[in-house]
């Protein structure tokens, strides 16, 4: 499968490219008062209004680095933006390289051990269930 690898804090994560609709530069986000804690706000993506999720808050990670990208994913016919520090690369991996996650977390689909670093593969559907 093809995956998009991105940085969040000091960790690397990945998503199946099938879910990824596009990668955007950081843009102005409209806050939604009283929204769930992990919802950062709304963006105008070429005329469509899209909810943006603060991925680090959702995954409970510390992160003070600059957030450069929004990954637009499309799950169950709805587009959602995920804020990440930086999108690194898109690579092809063998399915058997995906190992079972150590911790039992519905957001995590598996762990991929690349030579340089370890990547956590995220479960798309779980992200939008909140």
């Amino acid at each position, binding site marked *: 499968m093809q995956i998009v690898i991105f940085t969040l804090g000091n960790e690397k994560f990945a998503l199946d490219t099938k879910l990824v609709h596009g990668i955007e530069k950081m843009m102005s986000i409209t806050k939604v*008062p*009283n929204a*769930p804690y992990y919802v950062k706000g*709304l*963006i105008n993506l070429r*005329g469509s209004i*899209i909810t943006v999720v603060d991925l680090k808050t959702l995954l409970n990670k510390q992160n003070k680095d600059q957030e450069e990208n929004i990954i637009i994913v499309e799950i169950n016919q709805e587009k959602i933006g995920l804020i990440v520090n930086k999108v690194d690369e898109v690579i092809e991996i063998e399915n058997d390289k995906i190992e079972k996650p150590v911790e039992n977390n519905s957001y995590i689909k598996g762990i991929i051990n690349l030579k340089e670093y370890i990547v956590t593969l995220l479960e798309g559907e779980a992200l939008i269930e909140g």
Partner: protein
Amino acid sequence: MDMSQYLDIFLEESEENIQRLNEGLLSLEKNPDDKEIINSIFRAAHTLKGMAASMAFERVADLTHKMENVLDKIRNDQLNVNSDIITLLFKCVDKLQEMIENIREKGTEDAEVEEIIEALKNIEKGKAASITEKKVELEIEFNEYDKDIIKSALEKNYNVLKINVTIYKDSILKSARAFLVYKTLEELGEIIKSVPSIEDLEQENFENQFYLILITQKSEKDIKSKIEGISEVEKVEVERVKIKKDDRKEETVEKVEENKQKDVVNTSEVKEEDKNTKKVSQSVRVDLERLDKFMNLVGELVIHRTRLEQISRDFKSQELHETLEQVGRITTDLQDLVMKVRMLPIEKVFNRFPRMVRDLAQELGKEIEFVMKGEDTELDRTVIDEIGEPLVHLLRNAIDHGIETPEERIKQGKSSKGTVKLVAYQEGNKAVIKVEDDGRGLDVNKIKKKANQLGINTDGMSEQDIRNLIFLQGFSTSEKVTDISGRGVGMDVVKTKITSLGGSIEVQSEVGKGTAFIIRLPLTLSIIQALLVKVSEETFAISLGFIDRVIKINLSEIKISNNKEVIIYRNNVIPLIRLSEKLNLMEVELEEKFCVIVKVGEKTVGLLVDSLLGQQEIVIKPLGKLLQKQKEYVGATILGDGLVTLILDVAALV
């Protein structure tokens, strides 16, 4: 031939005709002698028959055909309308409805019609058989053109004569004789119609009898004597064709017994009396999805226009500005147009209610006068599709719980007949629908008792607040559960539905006098005029539809009453809501702020905002799944500068 593409049209038109049948029968029940009503019922049945036959739905065609026979008997005074017949005809309509539903769902008619057809046959035969013999008249049909000619001839004081000629049966030169008659008459005036046609006469395609319609200045006598001079003519009958309003006899003479054509002509149509039932409007049926797409595209256009306007302001180019103004006008027109295209008269929802009310009233043994007003009020298609169900609930409640039994009403000094009113009208940019009854009204004490049972504390609540409790889930004060209503799933469902349509509902009631439910709905759903306000750092849009007025206030004017902040405006105490507080935003320290006074139902509330940014047309876009629970917003919009702005749901905030 593949008929599937016509199926939708067939179904839709069938529903319309069934509706017409229902309406017709309801009024026939009230005015059994009105020929006009029978004619319109007849036409609806006839159209339905024609369509069903062409779609090869034989049972529908068969049943409507039998209905037509009975109707025809009524029309020709061979059968008197009584409640048995009406009930049977209603049953037929129900059966037709059932078959149409089956066609919609399963593609086949699939219904037992034999019994009902048998009943129709019995009615048709039983009472009418003795009178039906001597009706072997030939048929004369006038088309629009003929009618025009007849009308203008009559206006110019010409005689329009119908000449019935019978030639000896054993004549061997029938066509020659007919030709002679024709020739003779042609010299005396103008023949505008011949039955059978002139070709048929020439080819001897007729028995021994034919009709001619002649426009002439000669009298009936002259004509008669001239034709009687032709040999082998057995009999000549001459009568005047009258096309006058009250000449009912003439009407039946010209009427077609078994009409094979769609356009049944009778004198009433020459009179052009019933324009409303025969409204020929040029229209195209459009798939709703395409309209939605159209609407969305226009929405996009509005967004980008606003954006362009913003850019043009920055560039300060006169030329660009002028062009944009043009574009602006056109988009506004386009928007109006697409909105109007989506609008439908609420009649589409209302028209099934008279029948429902009648049936319910009968079932419950109540006497009810049902009044509908403002059926032509137009609403967005989406609203029209959704509003039916809540209205059914409200009407059922009114009939079941509201209106008392006749005996009870008389005891209370009311007339035995209860009145249920369904009224629609437009008010500003909202449509208002009222469901009123003059029944027993809401009993506040009963509601209180029920509330206490459910663990709701009613102390300190006003009577109006208590009445509003009926909109809570699981709240039904009716002691007995009937089939019609009273299962406690009524009013909260109604409220939820109406709120989801962006509307509001309120109740007014007085014990012993009656209850009124007032529903307010937005006329359109997706493009609205809004006021943009600033609270703390954020911008929000508030629909102008809710706004009564905006006032500037000094913070010192805010008073405390009953532990709540209020302002006094024109001697009215208005509760104040600080939006910053509601939305958990930083309070900005300012001397002067703005108070947006909004009206939701009969509630008036002031919303405190920091500043105003102006008024703008905005396109409402729904929020995504993750924000679905945020009741504070109806959606979001994109402003001219490209930024996303939330639209506040005033109804949920106050």
